């Protein structure tokens, strides 16, 4: 994490939080991060933009101890910035690790799952509890990864969106946590 310090020298207002987003103060955000509307970031969640900016879309839920990192790989070209893009309506459950630069919409990363830097997550995918994907691949839409051997199947439809849960969290979290002040992306 030594490479972080160079980015840290930049002022913290790289952080862009959309006005309706709920980002708890106890979360750990480093580097150039954009968080879209209605996205909920729980306390103790970690998002680190090391190799380049992270852009998170709308209506995502990022739970406790989840870890999203745009990692700077040691042999990568340092001059080129890699943007990590995360779409809308995704759920990052407790303790998941996400390193891939690309994620579409309506995906679920279940508890303690791990998505490596070379796995492209499209739309409607579910990475099951404890499943660790560290190879190189593009997950087709609606893929479900489950079980000890990371077996795959294609679901009929996408997992349901968590609209109600987002509403609930945005009401409740405010009562018990300090929030990071929203700083609109366009101001």
């Amino acid at each position, binding site marked *: 994490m030594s490479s972080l310090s160079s980015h840290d020298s930049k002022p913290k207002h790289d952080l862009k939080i959309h006005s309706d987003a709920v980002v708890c103060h106890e979360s750990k955000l480093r580097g150039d991060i954009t968080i879209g509307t209605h996205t909920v970031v729980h306390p103790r969640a970690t998002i680190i933009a090391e190799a380049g900016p992270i852009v998170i879309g709308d209506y995502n839920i990022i739970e406790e101890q989840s870890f999203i990192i745009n990692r700077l790989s040691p042999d990568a070209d340092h001059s080129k910035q890699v943007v990590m893009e995360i779409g809308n309506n995704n759920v990052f459950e407790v303790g998941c690790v996400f390193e891939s630069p690309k994620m579409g919409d309506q995906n679920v990363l279940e508890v303690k799952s791990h998505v490596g830097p070379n796995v492209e997550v499209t739309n409607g995918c579910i990475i099951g509890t404890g499943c660790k994907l560290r190879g190189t691949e593009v997950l087709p839409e609606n893929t*479900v990864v489950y079980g000890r051997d990371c077996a795959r199947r294609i679901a*009929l439809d996408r997992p349901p969106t968590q609209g109600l849960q987002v509403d609930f969290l945005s009401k409740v979290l405010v009562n018990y946590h300090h929030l990071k002040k929203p700083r609109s992306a366009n101001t």
Partner: protein
Amino acid sequence: MSYLSKSDIVKYACTCGQLKSITNMYFCRHCLKLRCGYCVCHEVDSHYCSNCLEILPSAEARLKKNRCQTCFDCPNCLNTLAVRGTTVSVRDPDDPSKVNSQKKYYHACFFCRWTTRDAGLPDQAVQTVSANGWTHKETNSSNVQRVTVLLERARLLGTLERHEREQREKKFTPRSRRTFTHLPGVTSAHVRKRAGLPPELPAPSTIKDTLAEFQPAVAKESVNPLPEEIFTKAVNLFEITTMPQRLAQPEIQPVFCVDLLPAYKHLSTKRSQRCRECEHNVSKPELNPSSTKFKIQQAAYFHVPEVRLVTAGALIGGKDTEVVLLFSNPSQHPTTLSFISLREAEEEEGNKQTEDTSDLADQQGEAASSLSSLTKPAVVLEEPRPISIKVTGNVELPSPDAEITLPPKDDAAEYDYSGETHKSHNDPKWVMHRRANKAAVSFTVTPETGFTGKRCVIGFVLRYTYINRIPSPGSFDQKPQEVRLDTRLFVDCGKICSK
């Protein structure tokens, strides 16, 4: 608490010769012997569904083929399915312009997200989905019918065989059983029943007639050829089932994922353990599936002194070192401990056995004459095994006469920190310290040479007194008796180093 469940440092030798930690053993209070999961008789107590926690009587469980009738397993990943509800809008049949919302239920797996919709099963209107609509189709039902016919045939053939044998035997035995049939109301079937004989067989001629109707299978010359499209059509692995998925449904063993149908959930059992020698229960759980308590739980941990390794000095081949073991008394009575070397114990055992066998021979002679063996079946036991562990260290034990007494377990004393270590005056010097029902004892251990890098295992026999509160069946003496029991112990002290 991990030392309770994971410890394999101190091992007790069970009566059957298995080495286990004390937490994995039972103590039969009637035979006064250690028992383990291997040498007790396991019995199925009750059947229950682990999902809905409903108990099924064993007769019903047998009828339902050990399957719960309300819960289902996912055919894809073999976990339990959950019921999910949705609202669908249905157009009113009377008034097409009106749209009614209706609650519909389907089953989904939260693990692999398989749903009954994947199998093309329609959503159900009620929450408790019956599997009537889901039962497997044509293919196997014809098989079942055929098997029923074959079973009937096998049964008739078996009867025929028995008939022939009875005929053969009849030539030599007097036919006394028909003598009463002339009495009113007494049929031959009745007589057979009273005589304890199986019901009379149908006449062999009728059996042969029925058998003649049977149609044996016909072999066919034509076989299904390999489908030509297999050479051209691309394979989608997502559509083909895996071996575990096929074997989960042995009758059908579907090849394609679309044919996977939810399976009734397999039941679980509650089991009780019984001592094989005296047939008393050593463990019996409560009937209620949600209860984790036991009606009877004779764990060795409640009766036999527990031994823990406290410290061990540097273990070097051929050099003396100090090993401290902690002994604690779990029972409600004081116990006296003494130590005997394995060799001495073996000799003692040998002497006892020769006595025993002569006793046994006498008894057997008696038994044969009084026919007492009819009342109780003989105890079937596997012969005890030799101990599989190799002792690699010599331990210097105090003389067998030297004893230490441990006070009974007192739950309140657990929280009493005042008297940290008080040695009683008459303790020998090898007792390091004691507290409540525990005492730490120091031993001198010499690891054997030539085992560098291996584990240093010491073994000895712990002799302890035990208060037997169960009167022996013969005696009228109801007083608790004090008995001395031996148990072989093996302690893994650590790795033997070279320097």
